[in-house]
Every structure is written in structure tokens, then in C-alpha cells.
């Protein structure tokens, strides 16, 4: 027995020893929330965080442009992930444009900043350093207001894809995973109203212009433009299906007219800022090659720094380092009118013989045509030419991309150029205004505003250097709609609009599920070619694809609280 007592005593003493604080990890400095709050530069870094979740334009899906999933273009490589859209190989399990998680992260970063900034007063600086105090308070407030815009932007990106989504208005407490799992999708109209109120707060407080060091930040005009675009989408066919009874997928009441009027009003608010703050640029092609300069037509841009990845992806294979990438389709090229305002037609032999002469000037500025000069030489898109089939990786459609592509970069020397992607520009606002006004009042009725729908479109067509003939008076609303949609298609080509426009107009199945055409070019002599349009591919599309599927793992994690979109 005494053996056990001895052992027991020593055991006890041993345990005492273990309590000695031997394991004491040295914790290196890691920034806690408190430290961020007190440090102005850390707060500034915290404000940048949600911006990094904004769409950056250019190649949004892998190496390809979103345009290659619409009837604007075809991606040259069969193996790029964007081709999954075109062959119908995407669903709730695998979606190349799955931005659900990314946008909610952006929303949380914006909420994180807002909640932290709400508790900051900078009082300790008030007496010790009044100038620094004023500066800090001013900037903190400006950043807080930016967060309203950013939240609205992220929700807009979500609803245009999915319909109604859960509205997360503040940082979720992640400790209660089961309560998070029971969050349901808000109705579409609730989401739209939320975006509009967020924009309204931002509109009230954001500055109208910015200094050079702040280029890229959010201004009042950006918030107005976001509100306008949101209300335009909210009034569109996709979210106003007749007989719709599911509020998550769109409106269930019949007040469509009201929505068009509201949209027109919101667009007008942006147009009223012209010509003081905004004005149409007098050079269409230069608008997409601004470098780092600020331009009066640009309302909100995403600056990308000095890169050349985009050129490397889209220069013709005939250039050293070029990889062709986006091949504009014959479908898009055919949409450009003749210089006199009439439509182009292949059955007109004169037009078919020389299809690029006397066309809307925007055609040559958007697409690289056969025998055009690009990057210092003529582009040989004919069969056997330096840039044409059957070269491996030459354009499948007979065109290369020109808009947004900076010429004169030597890719082998890794030359770069500053790029900026235009999220909102004034021309879009004119076209949106025209669309809303047409639906609300018709083409020639200006109602209480100063501009009719027709006048708005004609302002865009009358841009210096473009000078396309004006739309005539006396068109019916249907005729106007058709021509306006075509105008929107060519003016905003390759700006990530077409892909969404055809969905919201309800013509997704015929456009995105139709044939994509290209042109085969044969050389007769140095100045004469023959052009034969041909079928490149037939796309696969189903009307359920008008709305994206909610990612399946999110539906499972929500234990069914998130209802999946119909058809998926």
C-alpha cells in the first residue's frame, strides 16, 4: 500500500509541475479589429477590400470575354471554359460564371467597413490636430458612402443573374450556422428596392467630381447610373412575365408601366448631369483606349493598371505573341447599318461584293476587318493569309477584336499599356432612357421631361466621327424598339451588355441558342476578295438559362431554404 502512496504523492507533484507555464507561444503581431479601427491607413486598406470584388471586365471567364458566350463572338479555342456555355454544359453543379460566393464576399467586406466606420469618430484628433481631424472625418464619411454604392452594385450583379436573392444587410454572425442555413431568398422587388435605397443614400452624399488621385472611386453620377440601370432591368420582360406568381423570380403585380416611368426618371437624372459633368466623347474608338486619363463620358470605370494580358489574348495569331481569343461573329457584323441608315443585306449583290464599304463607322472601330490596318500592317484574313484559316488558331469567323485592344504593343518585349474598363458611360444612359421612354410613352412623347426617346437615341448616333442618320419621326413603338435594340447592340458591343440584354428582353432562346455565322474570305487580288458567310456553330440554349441556377452546394447547405430557379 505504501508503494501506491509514494507513487501517488510523486504523481501529484508532477502534475503541479506541468501547470508551470512552459508552453507559451510567442504570438507575432497580427492585426486585430481594434488595431484596424485606430489606424487610418489600415482603415483605408479596409475600404479598398470591397472594390477588389467588383467585376473587372475584359476576360471575365477564364481567358475569354463574356461576349464569346453571346451572339457577339466565338472563342477560338474549343477547350476554353467559356465554351461550356455554348454547348449547354453548365448547370448548378458547374458554372463558369459562378459569382454567388464572390459577390457575397464583396457585400460582407462592404458591411465590415460600414459597421467599423460607424463606430469611428476620430475625436482624439479634434483638439490635437484639427486639419488632420477634418481630413480624416471627410474621408471616412466619403468611404462610408461609397459602401452604399458598392453594396448596391454587388446585389445588382446577383439579381440580374439569379432573380431575388437573400438580402444580407449587415455582417452575419457566423457562430450560428443553423440560423444562417434558414435564410430565404427575398423577393425580386424587395431586392430592387434595397438597391435603390442604397443608391439614394449614396447619391445624396457622394461628390460630383473627383481629384486625379481618386480616379476610380465612386461619384454621385456612378450611383445615379447604377440606380438607372437597376430600374431598367427591373422593368424588363424577364422580370415582368405575365402570370408570374413567384415573387422571387420577378414582379407579380401588373404595374409595369410604373416601372418604366421610374426607370426613365432615373436615367434622366444622369442625363441632367450633362453637359456640366458628363458629355459624349467626340471620338468613339479613343473612348476605349483612354489609358489612365479621365474622360467626360465615363461615369464609373474599373482601372486595371499597365497590363498586356488582354492584347496577348486577342491579337491575331499572325502577330508574335497573339492568341486570337475573341472572334467577332458575322451576326454582329451584319447588325451594323449602311452609312445611309438602311440595313445591310447579303442578298444585295453590291453590298455582298464589298461588305465593309459605306458601313456604320463603328463597325471598323469595333471589329478588325479583312485587309484593314491594325497594329502597323494590313490584316490578311483571307484563306491562306497571315491571319486567316487554315492557320492553327486563326479566327474562326473571319474577324478579330478591335474595340478595347491597344495596338502597337510588342508582346515579345512585354510592353504594357494602362487599361480601364468602362462600367458605366453616358451613351448607355441615353439608350436606356430611350428604351424606358419608348415603353412608357412611345418614341416621340417627352411627357414631363425635356427629351423624347427618339431624340435621346439620335444624340448617340450623332456623335462626332459617327454621324449616323437620325431615327425618323412617326415610328411605332414596336418599330422603334427593334431599331433601338439594334442600336444598343452596335453601340455597346463587347461591353458585357448584349449577354444580359438578350436575356432581359426574353429573346435568349433565339439569340443565344441560334446559329453563329462567320465569313470565308477568298483572295482574288490585292484589293478584291470574295466573301461567303457560313455556319460556325449552332449554340445550345434552353429558356431556363435566362436565370442562372443557384449553386447546388449552396442549396444543400441551406437545407432547402434557398429555392432553386425553375428548370434546374
Amino acid at each position, binding site marked *: 500500500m505504501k*508503494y501506491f502512496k509514494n507513487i501517488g504523492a510523486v504523481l501529484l507533484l508532477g502534475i503541479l509541475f506541468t*501547470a508551470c507555464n512552459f508552453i507559451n*507561444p510567442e504570438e*507575432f503581431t497580427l492585426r486585430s479589429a481594434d488595431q484596424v479601427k485606430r489606424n487610418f491607413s489600415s482603415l483605408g486598406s479596409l475600404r479598398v477590400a470591397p472594390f477588389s470584388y467588383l467585376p473587372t471586365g475584359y476576360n471575365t471567364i477564364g481567358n475569354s470575354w463574356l461576349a464569346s458566350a453571346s451572339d457577339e463572338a466565338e472563342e477560338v479555342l474549343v477547350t476554353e471554359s467559356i465554351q461550356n456555355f455554348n454547348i449547354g454544359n453548365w448547370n448548378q453543379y458547374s458554372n463558369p460564371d459562378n459569382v454567388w460566393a464572390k459577390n*457575397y464576399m464583396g457585400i460582407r467586406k462592404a*458591411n465590415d467597413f460600414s459597421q467599423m466606420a460607424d463606430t469611428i469618430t476620430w475625436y482624439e484628433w479634434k483638439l490635437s490636430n484639427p486639419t488632420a481631424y477634418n481630413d480624416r472625418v471627410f474621408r471616412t464619411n466619403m468611404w462610408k458612402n461609397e459602401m452604399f454604392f458598392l453594396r448596391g452594385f454587388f446585389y445588382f450583379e446577383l439579381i440580374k443573374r439569379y432573380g431575388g436573392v437573400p438580402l444580407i444587410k449587415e455582417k452575419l454572425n457566423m457562430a450560428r450556422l443553423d440560423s444562417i442555413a434558414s435564410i430565404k431568398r427575398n423577393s425580386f422587388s424587395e431586392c430592387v428596392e434595397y438597391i435603390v435605397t442604397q443608391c439614394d443614400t449614396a447619391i445624396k452624399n457622394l461628390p460630383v467630381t473627383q481629384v486625379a488621385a481618386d480616379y476610380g472611386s465612386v461619384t454621385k453620377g456612378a450611383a445615379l447610373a447604377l440606380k438607372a440601370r437597376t430600374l431598367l432591368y427591373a422593368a424588363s420582360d424577364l422580370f415582368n412575365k405575365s402570370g408570374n406568381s413567384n415573387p422571387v423570380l420577378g414582379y407579380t403585380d401588373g404595374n409595369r408601366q410604373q416601372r418604366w416611368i421610374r426607370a426613365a426618371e432615373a436615367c434622366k437624372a444622369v442625363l441632367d448631369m450633362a453637359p456640366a459633368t458628363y458629355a459624349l466623347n467626340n471620338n468613339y474608338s479613343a473612348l476605349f483606349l483612354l489609358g*489612365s486619363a479621365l474622360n467626360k463620358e465615363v461615369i464609373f470605370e474599373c482601372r486595371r493598371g499597365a497590363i498586356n494580358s488582354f492584347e496577348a489574348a486577342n491579337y491575331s495569331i499572325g502577330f508574335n505573341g497573339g492568341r486570337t481569343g475573341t472572334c467577332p461573329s458575322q451576326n454582329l457584323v451584319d447588325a451594323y447599318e449602311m452609312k445611309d441608315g438602311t440595313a445591310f443585306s447579303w442578298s444585295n449583290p453590291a453590298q455582298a461584293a464589298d461588305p465593309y464599304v459605306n458601313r456604320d463607322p463603328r463597325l471598323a472601330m469595333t471589329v478588325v476587318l479583312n485587309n484593314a490596318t491594325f497594329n502597323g500592317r494590313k490584316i490578311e484574313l483571307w484563306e491562306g493569309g497571315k491571319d486567316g484559316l487554315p492557320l492553327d488558331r486563326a479566327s474562326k469567323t473571319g474577324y478579330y477584336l478591335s474595340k478595347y485592344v491597344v495596338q502597337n504593343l510588342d508582346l515579345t518585349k512585354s510592353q504594357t499599356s494602362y487599361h480601364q474598363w468602362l462600367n458605366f458611360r453616358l451613351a448607355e444612359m441615353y439608350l436606356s432612357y430611350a428604351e424606358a421612354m419608348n415603353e412608357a410613352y412611345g418614341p416621340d412623347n417627352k411627357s414631363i421631361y425635356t427629351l423624347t426617346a427618339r431624340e435621346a437615341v439620335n444624340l448617340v448616333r450623332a456623335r462626332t466621327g459617327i454621324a449616323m442618320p437620325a431615327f425618323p419621326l412617326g415610328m411605332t413603338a414596336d418599330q422603334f424598339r427593334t431599331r433601338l435594340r439594334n442600336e444598343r447592340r452596335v453601340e455597346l458591343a463587347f461591353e458585357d451588355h448584349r449577354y444580359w440584354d438578350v436575356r432581359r428582353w426574353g429573346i435568349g432562346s433565339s439569340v443565344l441558342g441560334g446559329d453563329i455565322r462567320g465569313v470565308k474570305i477568298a483572295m482574288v487580288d490585292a484589293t478584291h476578295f470574295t466573301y461567303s458567310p457560313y455556319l460556325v456553330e449552332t449554340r445550345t440554349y434552353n429558356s431556363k438559362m435566362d436565370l442562372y441556377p443557384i449553386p447546388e*452546394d449552396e442549396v444543400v447547405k441551406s437545407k432547402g431554404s434557398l429555392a432553386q430557379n425553375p428548370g434546374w
Partner: protein
Amino acid sequence: MKQRNTYMRQLKVKAGIFLLFFGTACAAFGQNAANAKGTKEVADSSSVKSASNLPVNWENTSSISTVTGKTIYKGSSYSPGNALYGLLPGLTVIQRSGEPGLEDPDFRIRGNGTFGNTNYPLVLVDGFEHDLNTIAVEDIESISVLKDASANLLYGGRAANGVIVVTTKRGALGKAKVSVNVMRGMQSPMGSPKFLGSADYATMYNQALASDGLPAVYTDTQIQDFRTGDPIYSPNVDWRKELVRNNAPATKANFSVTGGNNVIQYYASVGYQLIEGIYDHTAMHNGYSTNVNTGNINFRSNLDIKFTSDLKVKFDMYGQIIDKNTPVASTASIWNALNSYPSTIPIYALKDSLFGGTSVFPINPMGLINEQGYRSIHERSLIFNASAEYNLRKLVKGLVAGVRFGYDNFYTVNSAWSKTFESYTVTGKDPATGEPLLSAPFGKNTDLVYSNPSGDNQSLRLNLDGYLNYNTAIGSDQKLAAQLIYHQDKLALGGESPYYNQSLSGVVNYNMKNRYLVEMGLNYSGNEAFNKGHRFAFFPAISAGWILSNESFLKDNSVINFLKLRASTGTVGRSNLGYRFIYRDYYTGGGSYFFGTGTSATGSIIENSLANPNLTFEKSNKSEIGLESVLWKNISFSAAWFYEKRTNIVISQSNVVSSLGGVGLQNVNGGEAEKSGIELSLNIDKAFKDWGYFVGLNYTVMKSKVLYNGELPVPTGSEYNYTTGQPIGQPYGLEFVGFFQSDQDIQSSPKQQFGLVKPGDMKYRDKNNDGTVDDYDVGPIGHSTFPQSELGLVLGANYKGFDIQGVLQAQLGRDIYLGSNPYVYWPLINNGRISTYVDQSWTDANKATAKYPRLTTVSNPNNYRSSDFWFKKADFLRLRSVEIGYNLPSQVASRIKLDKVRVFVRGMNLVTMSNFTYEDPETMVGYPAMKSYNLGLNVQF
């Protein structure tokens, strides 16, 4: 508050130091106890023969296997780890590379038990954690593998993957005995894939272009010229043959002295080793070599000093200096280049002076290895262990106290002298001079530039143990032993928070009548990676044994000399989960965005994944039932069945955390896995007057299963996609059903979503019958490269002065994935070559008998992806080592004043039998494993 804590800490430290001198059992004791408790299942002749015919350590109730240094030495090549193939049941040794300095193998004890972080066991050298491969083989006294919870009790929170214990030699009473061991050998690489020569390559390349619908590139005259093979104009270079030699020398020497008297006993040794790599043409430059060479020198001194009859002290010192020389290019890039660089580009564009190359392939392997400079890595380690043991019999009879201290310092310096070189394409022949016309150069010729790629690194481990042992007899037929062992260690690496371990174990052993044995123990371990309150955990274990051979009904049995049944169960854990300090919320760097007109973006900070304050040990519940026996005096047989359930494996929470939160959560302990298996071991050892023989056979079967790993759900109908319920490491892929024979075949089959398919491409099964073949048709295929069972066989015999020993090892139930070596098995991938393995690719002509998909020059993600077509069975049996030695007769030896002179020849990896014969089935990629022929001498005097 802070001051009070300091005061309390000081008080506890004083109490602790006081305790230390009473001590609590230390790892050294623990290790001695382990050796004392272990049953040797050994292929060495001297163990089984003992006077009472009982195996040594018959009292042990836990699962330990041991092998002595003598056996290890006979099977060793140049790295101690490589000597353990097939010797210990339950220990799987996996060869990774044959590169000098990097040939240390990977270990698994009883297979894979977890899918988190690593399955590598804890390795202790003389009681403290250290790398096995920096110890000299000649210094090893024995290596033990501790397998079940009871054996691992003392290492509680570090032992979930099992423990390997290495003990070094110590002195013995007697006059000084000097031992000299010298060995020199030649190593040659095993497994060399062959590639088509330029002419055949060009023909096949044209065929591939045709199947892509592209025009041919090589003309008939070009192909004909390749057959004649002008080294500059139409080269046909076999890069492997050119740059890899078939033999590289290696030398090893060791000098040791052991002896002592009643006061001091010593073991001292000095060793030297030099191994050369197999790259060729590496001595082209003055003053340096671009070969892979490793040289090391080590010394050891182990002293046992008896100060008084009650106080024993030990001093151990070990040092090693390693110098490695390697080319600047990485091993992987060198072997990929040797396999993929075209044979149609000459080595030299101008006879022996300017390198050949093209714009796509500017760096040819000759230049890659030999013309880019060299790296020099210098490593130094120093270990110093001191221990004191005091016999407290004057206080309490049977009580012993001790303390051990260990200092382990490792320092490494990595420096490189690098340069670049120019290469040229031969564009034609100058008709006037007959000299080749060269293109503009690719790259630039530069001089050697010094760089320090990873700087200097120092790591220091400080160990401290204290122990208390108590042994007593109760009555005449009962024995009781108890131990209390305290351990702490700190590992300091530059730039990181130090690593701490602390543990306290108590074990009680009870023996009744030498028939019934019980052991109970409890370990309390802690680690710094976790949050306060989760740092420490209890790890209990209990085991029992019943020695049937001491029972009355078996006591005088002539056949069964010893029979023991044992069982154990318990819990051990581990804390090296790959996650430290995840219990704190903090902000970390996020994405960036451009503001203003400048070209540098502004960075941001974002919340890091939200903390998990509850992360704690991964736990392993082990159970075992075993049987050990000695039959007919010379045959020992043992069998064991084991089962382990691993819980608290770290898994991601991405399958439960909704993205609506916008932020991730840190990983949690939630995964579970289990494994089970059987070990069998048989040893026969017979000695006669002039001759003798021994056989040691061991066989292990291992099975594992993932029980829960938090994976994301898959659509209904594709449940085979789940990794849960499958073995750990199970490979996944598509099921191959044949080649597409025609366009109609493609139209009428389910649509494959991996890219454009043409006739000749691979067709896969649509397992979920949804009309498409995509990632949801991927299911488990084949086996991983980790074997399902392993067999080891040691055979030896001696006759008069001759002796022979061989070790065979077989790994069964494993597959290899050809896609892990794409340049050999996936022809033309990334502009590579075509190996001779590629036979009968599909063409329209041979569509009925095709064995390989059609050749293609563009990327083909449809064919070159994981499917059962690319998994091949790769069971193998290897003769790991065979040694024939001859002892000079003692009269001859004594004439030259030597006690023993033995010459031997030893071969390593001489014979391999496998159902995959194209390459070495064990190390398919990178620097090949080596076979070697060695000649050596053992002298003792």
C-alpha cells in the same frame, strides 16, 4: 496581474527543479523500458537462442518489433532508412528517390491512418525527436517500431502515427575493441524509359498531324537524313544516354572503438561517406562540378560513467557535416527535360562549342545540367545529450530517479553560383565553308553570379526529461513496477513562433506468477498550436497478457516453449496538424485595386477566415490482439490483429458554411477514418556445429477507410464520386470502354464534355446515365501506390567462414498512375517525345487492334486525364540486399594481430520482379532509384 503571474511562475519553477532531482521517468528510461518490454521479432540469429528459450522481453504486453544493428548493417546502402525494407512487420518503407543526399525513404506504420497532414511516424533517436537519416548506420544498436497504444503511451500526444525508436551503441566492459568497416561500390540507375529516335519520331509526328487534320511537317528526305543521323544537321540525340551514366561510385568508411572498465564505458566512432550522382559531362568546368555529389563526415562519442554505486551518468555527443553539390536546375526539371527534349535538336550547333536550341526549346539538357552553374548546400548538426540516474535504494528500495537533457542544433546554408548560356538553331549549311549557318542566339552567355536562395537556417531543439522508476516484489509471486516520466521540448526555428511539447506519463505494470500481466498507463500531453484550454489532453492505455506457456498444462510441453496472448487498447494523439494559432481572428492582406493614374495598385486588408478556438489533438483509438510463441525451440511465430479509429481529423467547413456569410471559417476537427489489418511474423534460427541458417518472414495486410471528411454533396446517381467509404488515398477517374471508331460512333455515344473528340479518342462510361460524360462520372478506380499488403523475407546461412544473407521485400496490391509521368506515357504532350511504351496508337487502318489512343499534336484533355486506362498494376518483389561474406580463419587473422577479418560483396536492389516492367515500379518519376554492387571489409581488433 503580470507580476503575480511571474511570481507564481518562479515558484513553480523552483518546485519543478526540486522535483527534477527526484525525477520522473524520462524518455531514455522509457526507451530502455520499451526495449526491456519489447519482444524481439528479429531476423538475427543471436536473439532467439537464449538459455531459457524465452524470448528477451517476454513480459511485454504491447506491440513492439525490434531489429538489431547487425541485421540493419548487412542490408544498408548509404542511408539508414533504406536499410529497413522488409525487416519489421508493420513498418512500410517507401523509396522516393535515388538522389544522393535525398534518398531517405518515407515511413508508414501499419499503413495510412489519416487523411490530414501527414502519416509520417514520430522518430526518436536516443529518446529525443530527430531525423533518422542523419545517423550513421554503424552507430545503430537497434531500431524498434512501437505500434499500439500501449507501446506508444509515453509519447501520447505525438504518437498517433506510431513511433520509431532508434538506440545507438554504448560501451561495454572489456578491453578496447576497434572495428573498421569500409565499403566501396558502384551505383547504377534502375528503370530507364526509351524514346523513339528522330526518324521514327518524325514519321509518327506526321501521323499525328494527319489525325489532327493538319499537313505533314517532316519530308521524306528529312526522315531519311535522321536515319543516318548527322550530329549537327539531322541529329538523333538520345539525351538520357548522353547525360546519364550507368555507374557512379560511392564510398563509405567507419571507424569505431568500444570498451570500458567498471567506471567508464565508451563507444566512439568516426564515419565518412561520399556518393556521386549519375549525371555525365559534369567536370567540364574549372574548379567546380555540376554533378549531384554528397559527402558527409560524422563522429559520435557515447560515454557511460559510474560515479558512485548509486549515480550513473551518460554523456553523448554526435556531430555531422554534410556537403551537397547539385546543378542549379531542379531535379524535376532535369528529368522532365531528359524525357521530353526533342531528339531532333543537336547538342552542339557548332562542333562541341555552341549549344543547340530553338525559340521553343532554348535550354537543351546538356546545358541545363552542366552550363547553368552549381548549388552548394552545407549542413551541420550537433547533438549533445547528458543524463544522470540516481539509485534511491537508500531511501526506498527499488526507486530510481533520473534526469536527461538534450541539445540538438541544426544549421544549413544554401548558396548558388548560377549563369546562363546561349543556344542557336542550325538553319543550314554554308556552301562555301561547309560550316553550319546559325540563327540569332536564344538566351545570353553570362558569368557565374552568386546568390543565396534560401539564406541561412538554424534550428535548435532543447529537450528535458525527468523520471522516477519504482520496482518491487509483492510476496513471492507478484511484481509491481511503476514509472512517472516527464518530458518537455522546445524547437526554435528562425522567423516562426517556437514549437513546444510537454507531457507527463504514469505507467504501472503488474505481474502475477509470471503468467498474468497487466499494464495501465495515463499520459497527459500538451502542445502550443492550440488555444488555452485545448492544449492538453489525456491519453490512456491499458494492456494485458497471459503467458500460457507458464501455466501448468503447458509448462513442460516439448513443442510449445513459449506462448503468450496479449491484448491492448488505448488512445494516442498528434498535434502536428498543419494548423497553428487558428484560434484568433485577425485581418490579413486581400486583393488590390487601382486608384488614380499610377501603375501600382492599392492593397487591401480583409478578415481572415473566422477563428476556430476549439482546435485540438487528432486522436487515435488503437486496439490490438496478439499472439507470440516459440515452438520447437528455434521457431518463433507471432500474429497480431489491429484496429484503429482516427477522430478529430482536421477538415474544411466549406460544406456547411453558407457563402451568404461572405467569409470562410477555419478548419475544424471533424474527420474520421479507420484502419485495420493483420501482421504475421515467423522466424526460424538453427545453428549446428559448422553451419547454421535463419529465416525471417513477415507479412502485413493493411486496409483503411475514410469515414467522414465533410465533402460537398454530389448529384443523386453519382454517389460513387464520394471519397467517404473508400480507402485513404483512393484514386478516382473515368471508366474506359474503348476507342471511338468513327464519327457515327461519336454521334451515338453519350456526349463527352472534356473537349472535341475524334475517332481514335478514348470513350468513357456514362455512369450516371445522364447522357453526358463529365466530372460526375468519375468514380474510384484501382488502388493507390500504397500497397495493400507487404511481405518481407530475410534468409541467411553460414558455413564455416562463409556467410550469406538476403532480404526480399514485396509490395502487393498497388497500382501506378501513368499520368504522373506524362512525358513518358502521354506522347507528344507539351511538345514532348514519344516513348517506346506507346505501341499501336489508333489509326484508321489498325482500329481493330489499337492499344493506345490516336496520336495528336494539339492538347487533348479528353484522352490525357485520370481513367482506369492509365492505372496499371504494379505489385513488385525486390531483392533489396544480398551479401556474401567470408571470415578469414582465426589463425590467419591473429597472425596479423587482428581478431576478425571479413571481406564481403553486397548487392542492393539487384533483382526486381513486377507486373509493370517498363520502368522501375517504385520510383517512376524524377531521379531514379539505384541498384548497387559493393565490395567491403570488416576488420576488428
